[in-house]
């Protein structure tokens, strides 16, 4: 996923934009709603902020993230799906640092 997420995103976004497919695995809102972390007060922190999910890899490889110029960095609804859209049978609602710890 780490290696291929751009291909996936580029394909899915056209499906959503041009055809209106809005399943959880085609929804960036869905990704953000799980991967956005919370601060000590329980408020959501922008998912692309320093030391958050995206920056964990992106800062190391120095690749700019363009998505969040337009897309919201904080969710305002709970995630729809119970499991990760791409990995069937994965545990639900994992800590947002899960993938990074598995390095």
């Amino acid at each position, binding site marked *: 996923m780490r290696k291929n997420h751009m291909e996936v995103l580029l394909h899915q976004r056209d499906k959503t934009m041009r055809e209106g497919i*809005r399943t959880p695995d085609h929804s960036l809102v869905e990704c953000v709603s799980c991967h956005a972390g919370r601060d000590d007060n329980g408020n959501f922190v922008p998912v692309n902020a320093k030391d958050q999910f995206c920056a964990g890899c992106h800062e190391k490889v120095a690749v700019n993230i363009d998505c969040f*110029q*337009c897309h919201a960095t*904080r969710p*305002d609804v709970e995630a729809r799906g119970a499991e990760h859209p791409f990995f*069937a049978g994965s545990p639900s609602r994992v800590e947002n640092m899960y993938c990074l710890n598995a390095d």
Partner: protein
Amino acid sequence: MSENQHKGRGERRTFFAQVSAGAALLALAPGFRLIDLAVGKNDDEPARPDVRWGMFVDTTRCAEGCTDCVDACNTEHGLQGFDRPQTDAQWIRKLDLEDDQTGQTWSLPMMCQHCESPPCVDVCPTGASFVRDDGIVLVDKHTCIGCRYCMMACPYKARSFIHEDLTDQRPHSPRGKGTVESCNFCVHRVDGNRLPACVEACSDAGHNALVFGDLNDAESTVSKRLSTMQTSQVRDDLGLNTAVRYHGV
């Protein structure tokens, strides 16, 4: 990572959620079919080409000074103004008219007319401005280069350019600096079998000036309005076959 993997619990849950939301909506407004669930679609279905979304505007029910539709749109899409009216985005606006000869006045909402042959789609160099299969005119912000040619081409001045950095966008309405946008019939709502925010707000407030639905379905409320009441297209001489029709002007 195949799409089949998430079928099952998740999909059924989504479907039931939508049906119950739809039923609740119907219950709130007895006798008034706000949206025809028969043409609603599931999340995994593409937009249906046999559907054409359209809107009927009854200008006799539009009061001058009422901005319920505008306020609802601004809230729904997070159109935060920056106190710079010349560059702030407006997806829908109230247009106040006065006849030069007779002095008669009208007030009506003006937004993207979702033309069948949109000039904005013709002129877009990258094809970012496009008509979806169900008639909704959208801007694919991934491909938009911000040249603003579509803004020159729109006969209704419906489009806005985003002139500054944005933060805290509404998650269902991504918008960002340097791209062009316009009313998208609240496509995220329509895909979820809900009404556009303006229509819902107008109806909640009791004005009932806006009716939304499938123009291709002769039994839909909007089609019935169009076939029984006088309506006109704005700038009809351009031959664009707009999806928004106005009564009373």
